[in-house]
């Protein structure tokens, strides 16, 4: 129980910390704003209905937030220590695997917990208004806390084995999405193949927080209480298993990396290939270095384009599966448009993540200081980044645009009149916005990477800068128009969305570009204290 002192200490420190404070303030403000908005919109309905709706929305948000918390809070906590080389130090003390895992779990999850906790008082309102029972309230709190615990445990396990921040964060996200969406989809598919298995317990849903959430409401809970508790219990138990497993393997995983002496073996060859070390690679290096030194630095993991194509192949496979399964129900304009939205979203996220990666890494490991005292210029660095991003993304982007052109043509072939013009607008707007967003992200992500205090937050921050303002503005206008019972059709909203997006892209893109061109060196000079390691916490510093 050596982790207990750490926990108590962290609790008091975190409560005083500024970031914690802001997390709490922000989530409480959002909750209050949404509640107020719903109250005004549903002013004509019965209070019980309003209360139920508010409760449903609030708890859904809270559960979603909790279910994804692992990505933000634990995914990179141990891998960061591994990169800093401080993980090994922990095991020179008399700490055991579970001390480290539990200590880290609490230390890095307090912000998450406080964020969720801030919503609870707002939930009191629907409780007072009636229509929501105390039982529901209690069950929903359990669901959210349990989802939080499970999510953090997942992040912790991924963090135990991962090294790079990106692998840790994306790996955790993937695992969580698989658990919440992949397993239920598989289950649904199997049931669809063999309808007699309907009576079987829906095992694929058992870990899905959405499922537990739905069962928590009185209406469903009355019928299937045992399923609710099984689902909750199974998730909880699995979370402990994940943590136990993490504690077990952590002491074996802390070594930084295998020494290069142990040559031979398949594992080693795979490693060499991943790192990029084959005869062809010396040529690759020569070619890129002669073009632009920074180009090679960002591209030296030469398998990156292959990963992008692989992701596209996987998505194509999912699409083909849907087509095969749902036949003509699948091939309609809705599916096409959804496909377009998802593809465009994914490429933007991946682009932002890749564009911010190298600069964040270089700033934090101090390599930027070396680079900037060589004749390498800032514009060469930016050029190298551009070349490297082009190498990874140009092919997939062209491919996606081709697919979208096909889907677009397929859509307008079946549509007539006003529907046809609507789809034309939607498709063109979406494609153009994606391209412009990518342009803005190129600059914003690099600037965010260069100035990020925590490298793994850089891409999220830049996505937020590009996506959030237009949507927030649109939401405000939407609320205003609903409450004042004015408002236009989809045309108004869509053109507003495009317009806001355009202006925002232009403003943040130009701002980031100016910053990069003029203040790159100044920003690189800033020193960031490395994140506080567990050792310092233990030492009571």
């Amino acid at each position, binding site marked *: 129980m050596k982790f207990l002192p750490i926990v108590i200490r962290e609790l008091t420190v975190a409560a005083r910390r500024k970031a914690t404070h802001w997390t709490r303030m922000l989530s409480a403000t959002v909750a209050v704003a949404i509640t107020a908005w719903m109250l005004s919109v549903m002013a004509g309905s019965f209070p019980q209905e309003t209360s139920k709706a508010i409760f449903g929305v609030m708890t859904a948000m809270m559960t979603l937030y909790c279910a994804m918390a692992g990505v933000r809070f634990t995914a990179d906590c141990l891998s960061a220590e591994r990169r800093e080389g401080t993980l090994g130090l922990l095991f020179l003390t008399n700490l055991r695997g579970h001390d480290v895992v539990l200590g880290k779990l609490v230390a890095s999850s307090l912000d998450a917990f406080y964020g969720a906790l801030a919503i609870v008082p707002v939930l009191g309102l629907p409780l007072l208004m009636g229509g929501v029972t105390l039982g529901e309230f209690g069950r929903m709190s359990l669901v959210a806390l349990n989802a939080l615990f499970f999510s953090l445990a997942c992040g912790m396990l991924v963090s135990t084995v991962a090294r790079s921040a990106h692998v840790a964060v994306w790996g955790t996200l993937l695992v969580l999405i698989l658990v919440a969406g992949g397993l239920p989809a598989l289950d649904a598919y199997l049931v669809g193949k063999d309808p007699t298995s309907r009576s079987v317990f829906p095992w694929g849903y058992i870990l899905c927080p959405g499922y537990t959430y739905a069962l928590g409401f009185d209406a469903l809970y009355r019928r299937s209480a045992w399923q609710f508790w099984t689902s909750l219990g199974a998730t909880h138990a699995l979370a402990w298993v994940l943590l136990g497993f993490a504690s077990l393997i952590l002491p074996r995983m802390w070594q930084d*990396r295998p020494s290069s002496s142990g040559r031979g073996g398949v594992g080693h060859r795979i490693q060499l290939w991943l790192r990029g070390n084959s005869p062809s690679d010396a040529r690759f290096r020569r070619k890129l*270095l*002669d073009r632009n030194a920074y180009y090679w*630095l960002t591209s030296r993991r030469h398998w990156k384009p292959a990963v992008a194509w692989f992701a596209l192949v996987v998505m194509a496979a999912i699409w083909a599966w849907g087509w095969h399964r749902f036949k003509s129900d699948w091939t309609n304009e809705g599916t096409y448009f959804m496909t377009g939205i998802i593809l465009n979203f994914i490429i933007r996220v991946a682009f932002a993540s890749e564009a911010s990666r190298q600069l964040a890494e270089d700033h934090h*490991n*101090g390599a930027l200081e070396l680079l900037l005292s060589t*004749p390498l210029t800032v514009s060469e660095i930016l050029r190298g980044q551009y070349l490297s991003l082009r190498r990874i993304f140009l092919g997939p982007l062209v491919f996606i645009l081709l697919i979208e052109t096909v889907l677009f043509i397929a859509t307008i072939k079946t549509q007539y009149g006003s529907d046809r013009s609507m789809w034309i607008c939607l498709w063109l707007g979406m494609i153009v916005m994606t391209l412009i967003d990518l342009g803005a992200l190129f600059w914003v992500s690099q600037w965010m990477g260069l100035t990020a205090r925590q490298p793994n937050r850089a891409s999220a921050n830049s996505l937020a800068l590009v996506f959030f303002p237009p949507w927030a503005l649109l939401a405000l206008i939407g609320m205003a128009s609903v409450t004042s019972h004015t408002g236009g059709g989809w045309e108004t909203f869509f053109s507003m969305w495009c317009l806001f997006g355009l202006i925002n892209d232009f403003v943040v893109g130009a701002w980031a570009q100016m910053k990069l061109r003029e203040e790159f060196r100044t920003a690189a000079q800033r020193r960031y204290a490395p994140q506080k390691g567990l050792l310092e916490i233990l030492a009571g510093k």
Partner: protein
Amino acid sequence: MSGEIPEPVVAVQTVGLSRTFGSTAALLGLDLTVNQGDLFGFIGSNGAGKTTTLRILATFLSPSGGTAKVLGHDVVTDADAVRNVIGYMPDFFGVYKDMEVTEYLDFFGACYRIPGAQREKTVNDVLELVGLREKRGFLIGALSRGMQQRLGLARVLIHDPRLLLLDEPASGLDPRARIEMMAILQELQKMGKTIIISSHILSELQTLCNRVAIIEKGKLIYSGPVQGVRDHTTAGRTIRAKVAGDVESALLLLRTDTRIAAVVQENGFLKITLASPELDGSVVAETLVRGGARLLSLAEDELGLEEVFMRLTRGETQ
């Protein structure tokens, strides 16, 4: 090419160099001159401003005031020219641990615009120079600290710079690695390079450097040959003497002499601090012999140099 322009004998010159970070002043008007061919020791306790100075000379930081010239080029207005003639090694490794030794050097060679065909040979040459030839295929993360430090030196040398700026290169090295590092540096000095090496331990550079500068709180407090450090302080020398027989009366003799600041007994020796820097060991001999004590040995305390340094820097902080 142009034989008329005389080579500057001054490698580095700073005038009133200052730098502030928010409200903390890291450098407060530093005037420093380093001549070409010097192996120059740059000494100061932690936080004195050594790293800040070297970063400015390496064009990574910009000064808040004053000027700095490196081999005739201003570090602000002519930064590109400066970057081509210096090799800067920071106080941490700044390495990519998942790169191989050759990849790392090849990359930095390209940063210095060495053409591809020539790079391979240059990489081999610098690896040879620092004695890392057998480690060429190794991952940097798998090298020992001493080897990583030597790799850092190899990187600094890749474009054959005329001035090396090394920030605490010996810190964290074991004595053997330290001696190897010093030997390489002496070799480089013989090749005609100017080297500035910083440290927070004066005695570490005592035998290595021909000139030293001592800074404290962003100000220069001494610059010149190592031997001159002592003359520069108001502190007297420290003498170790051994007497036979009645130590107590010898102590009394010394304590009543006004030319002697302090006497303590240490491991059977008398450790005597003289009152002013002009005085030397003869004072002690004279006093003891006149007073009738039996003086067995008398020597100036070698370790005293570190004490002088401590006194110098402490004097500034108080």
